[in-house]
């Protein structure tokens, strides 16, 4: 671990990890200060804040993002080394620690490359420009007379005259001011390179964080130890909305290592010297709770009935194209269907955790929070500390695709550290994490579609009800769980958001509406919604892309052909750019799969295993994806195996193809898990799915036999120099649910409209349909 100052001082730039057997492996760099604070914001308008070049002609990039395991850190190095003209191997990257890296907001929204990649590229290009100017002065020749390659600048006419970046600026500061009204607009005066000039970009550099993750040498946020630290465990209310009546401290006071019971409002924690002592004491602590007067929520079995009957807390104005009412009235065929998606959890493989150290009158939090800067700001407000006395040291951790956007454990550790005056490490237990983490909102969608006599889709009506009221914010001091339990209430609960599908098809008459509904209890509830990997996309796309398949079947049309017909038809409500790329993706997926055109469902076979294939397609922002699933359905058990997945994906310029493939595979399988297994279950008091047995997720045995990723570059003009890099982390999660549902329909003729497709539910549906 090293500070920015150390970086500038030290002669060697690369922190290497010495593994157990003396292996040298590159590993993620973690910034940690010996510095006693305060910790002012790093000034994004200074070139030195972003790039440090050492005398040994190596460069370290300081960026305000976090890498959740998609290889974005590696990608940042690729794009920045290209713009800087420094070999990739001579660069390193420090991410996400609030006192050493500029505040780019951490991670979220799949925007690491789409948005944040540009200021990174521009500052690297600016550094190159400044270095060329320095060399121009040194050799007394104009910049145009210089050649730069791999961190070495030479005089074009006399290559014996050369100087390295390290010789020009190593160990010194650039002292170059940048401009820009906000961090995303940060720029110097240098221009970006054309895509064709990029060298590392487009290559599959191995991720630098992988070796240390497989040999045990990496220090993760869970591993940090500081002198004098103690361990805390939370004690949660046994039912949602319960009020703390009393705590009997004598029930744990005599236990080994006992330090303190801390309570405030309905927040209760036990602190002990050792971790297992804190776990035991938290289990043994006698606490009296008052049950709430009214049930906090319906049971999970009754959730959708409740949602359909509840008065919305808000409704988005309907997006209407054409005249849907008239089109439905005059249609040859109208079909209707309801689609349901339950609450699904983030359910991190490692529960929430953080270590907070109050030494030196500062508050340092070691955390895997994807939005480390927000945690810094939130904790400062929560504890009423000056912002520059709080810093978050970002380190690797278990990722759950949105869970750490509101980093409960970071707030809890900081609160307890302040109370006790010692460093406190908090870690949630499994039942706590699975029950109380943030949830992806439940959806109940009603769909209607109208076909004309030729089987053309002439009207489409989507109406969603989304249980998303009081959606949790990002590390807000007044909405994180500890704050709610202490009784804090912001003036207004968050409205939450409904979601409608992308307007991807040219349908002449269309109405799309969404409403948000609230559960009875909105505060201190384990059913608090947060952003789960494309927060609403999997749910809305499950409904809409399954229903498009129903319409294709009703029109007796092949599902691919039916979709392409809707994409080629002319309307004025879509950009040709995205439509051309959509067509390219659907065709690429169908080609790779060797899709045989025919209407679904196919004739149901006679054996125990029924097979089928289904397609779904969507986009998010500018990224387009089409997926085809091939399934085997066991007619005797109801078990569904997704045997094969094909994914055609267009996210523009690809920085690292192999890292992208891994990201797409993982994202798709995450949605396979959500399709087949995942559902938050609850009675009228509490969440009852609390571990890996009661909240099952995908396992090795569910893994497809084959996954094919087709990276499509459907840009109509791929040679253009400004070809952008779009985001890739979330779009891929959206169509999988529908692709699988459509494949099950193809195999069995049975339409499943409620996820997850666990064996019992599938079997019941097959039996009802007499399959």
């Amino acid at each position, binding site marked *: 671990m090293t500070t920015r100052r150390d970086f500038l001082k030290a002669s060697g730039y690369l922190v290497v990890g010495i*593994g*157990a*057997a*003396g*292996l040298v492996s590159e590993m993620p760099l973690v910034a940690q200060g010996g510095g006693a604070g305060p910790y002012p914001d790093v000034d994004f308008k200074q070139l030195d804040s972003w790039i440090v070049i050492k005398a040994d002609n190596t460069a370290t990039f300081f960026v305000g993002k976090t890498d*959740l*395991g*998609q290889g974005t850190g590696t990608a940042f190095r690729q794009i920045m080394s290209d713009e800087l003209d420094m070999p990739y191997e001579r660069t390193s990257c420090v991410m996400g620690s609030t006192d050493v890296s500029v505040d780019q907001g951490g991670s979220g929204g799949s925007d690491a490359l789409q948005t944040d990649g540009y200021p990174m590229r521009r500052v690297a290009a600016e550094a190159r420009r400044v270095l060329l100017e320095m060399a121009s002065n040194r050799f007394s020749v104009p910049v145009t007379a210089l050649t730069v390659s791999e961190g070495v600048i030479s005089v074009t006419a006399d290559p014996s005259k050369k100087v390295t970046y390290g010789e020009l600026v190593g160990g010194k500061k650039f002292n170059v001011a940048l401009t820009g009204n906000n961090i995303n607009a940060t720029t110097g005066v240098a221009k970006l390179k054309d895509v064709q000039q990029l060298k590392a970009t487009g290559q599959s550099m*191995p*991720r630098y*964080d*992988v070796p240390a*993750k*497989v*040999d*045990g*040498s*990496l*220090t*993760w946020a*869970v*591993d940090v*130890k500081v002198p004098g630290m103690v361990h805390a465990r939370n004690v949660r209310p046994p039912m949602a909305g319960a009020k703390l009546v009393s705590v009997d401290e004598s029930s744990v006071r005599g236990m*080994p290592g006992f330090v303190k019971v801390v309570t405030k409002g309905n927040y209760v924690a036990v602190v002990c010297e*050792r*971790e*297992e*002592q804190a*776990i035991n004491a938290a289990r043994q602590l006698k606490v009296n709770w008052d049950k709430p007067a009214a049930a906090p929520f319906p049971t999970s079995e009754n959730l959708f009935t409740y949602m359909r009957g509840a008065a919305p807390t808000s409704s988005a104005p309907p997006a209407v194209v054409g005249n849907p009412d008239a089109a439905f009235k005059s249609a040859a065929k109208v079909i209707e269907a309801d689609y349901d998606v339950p609450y699904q959890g983030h359910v*991190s*493989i*490692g*529960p929430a955790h953080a270590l907070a150290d109050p030494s030196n009158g500062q508050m340092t939090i070691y955390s895997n929070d994807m939005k480390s800067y927000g945690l810094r700001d939130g904790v400062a407000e929560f504890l009423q500390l000056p912002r520059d006395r709080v810093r978050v040291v970002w380190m*690797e*951790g*278990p*990722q759950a695709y949105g869970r750490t956007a509101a980093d409960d454990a970071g707030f809890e550790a900081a609160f307890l550290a302040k109370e006790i005056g010692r460093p406190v490490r908090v870690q949630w237990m*499994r039942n706590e994490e699975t029950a109380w983490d943030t949830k992806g909102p439940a959806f109940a969608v009603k769909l209607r579609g109208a076909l004309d006599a030729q089987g053309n889709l002439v009207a489409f009506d989507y109406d969603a009800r989304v249980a998303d009221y009081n959606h949790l914010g990002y590390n807000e001091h007044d909405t994180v769980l500890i704050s709610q339990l202490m009784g804090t209430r912001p003036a207004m609960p968050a409205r939450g958001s409904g979601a409608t599908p992308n307007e991807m098809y040219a349908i002449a008459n269309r109405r799309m509406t969404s409403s948000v509904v609230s559960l009875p209890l909105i505060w201190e509830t384990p059913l608090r919604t947060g952003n789960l990997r494309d927060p609403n996309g999997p749910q809305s796309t499950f409904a809409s892309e399954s229903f498009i398949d129903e319409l294709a079947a009703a029109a007796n049309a092949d599902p691919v052909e039916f979709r392409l017909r809707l994409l080629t038809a002319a309307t004025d409500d879509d950009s040709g750019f995205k439509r051309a790329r959509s067509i390219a993706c659907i065709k690429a997926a169908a080609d790779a799969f060797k899709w045989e055109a025919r209407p679904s469902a196919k004739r149901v076979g006679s054996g125990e295993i029924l097979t089928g294939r289904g397609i779904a397609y969507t986009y998010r922002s500018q990224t387009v994806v089409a997926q085809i699933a091939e399934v085997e359905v066991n007619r005797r058990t109801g078990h569904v195996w997704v045997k094969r997945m094909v994914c055609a994906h267009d996210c523009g310029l690809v920085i690292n193809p*192999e*890292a992208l493939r*891994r*990201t797409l*595979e*993982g994202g798709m*399988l*995450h949605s*396979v*898990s959500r399709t087949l297994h995942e559902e938050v279950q609850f009675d009228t008091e509490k969440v009852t799915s609390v*571990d*890996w047995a009661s909240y099952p*997720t*995908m*396992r*090795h*045995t*569910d*893994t*497809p*036999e084959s*996954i094919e990723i087709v990276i499509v570059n459907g840009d109509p003009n791929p040679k253009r120099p400004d070809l952008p890099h779009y985001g890739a982390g979330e779009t891929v999660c959206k169509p999988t649910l529908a692709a699988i549902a459509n494949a099950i329909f193809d195999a069995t003729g049975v339409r499943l409209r409620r996820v997850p497709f666990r064996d019992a539910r599938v079997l019941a549906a097959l039996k009802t349909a007499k399959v």
Partner: protein
Amino acid sequence: MANIALRVNGQSRTVDVDPATPLLYVLRNDLDLKGPRFGCGLGQCGACTVIIKGEAVRSCVRPVSTVQGAEITTLEGLSQNGKRHPLQQAWIDEQVPACGFCQNGQIMSAKAMLDKNPTPTDAQIRQSMATTLCRCMTYYRIQAAIKRAAKAIASARRGSNSEVIA
């Protein structure tokens, strides 16, 4: 508290802890090992896996008193003579991890499996690994890496055999 003698990655260590303490906390907090990790504390996910007497053991539910004297291998102990274990190399070659938090359990479970059955079928791999969970869903690459490592181990073995024959 009691003195407990342990053998970890070939070294003798003595710790002074409550004998009922799960081995995981002793490895992590007393012996400063970072490979085994807390995932569930219930023996359900495998993130805490270590190898004892050739078996993949969930250290989060194994009292430290029950493993006294037994040779315990953690992720840190897989490398030999400065060389990564073929499984670790295969994990790098396949670029398996996403966040990587569960991969200790994946690698250690795979090691215990391959030590018993060096040539597993696809079905055996899936079955043997069935209760070792990954939330980033890297299963597809894990299975590919296990097959790659099995091949590397077999080919190394053939290599050493042919040397003997020669």
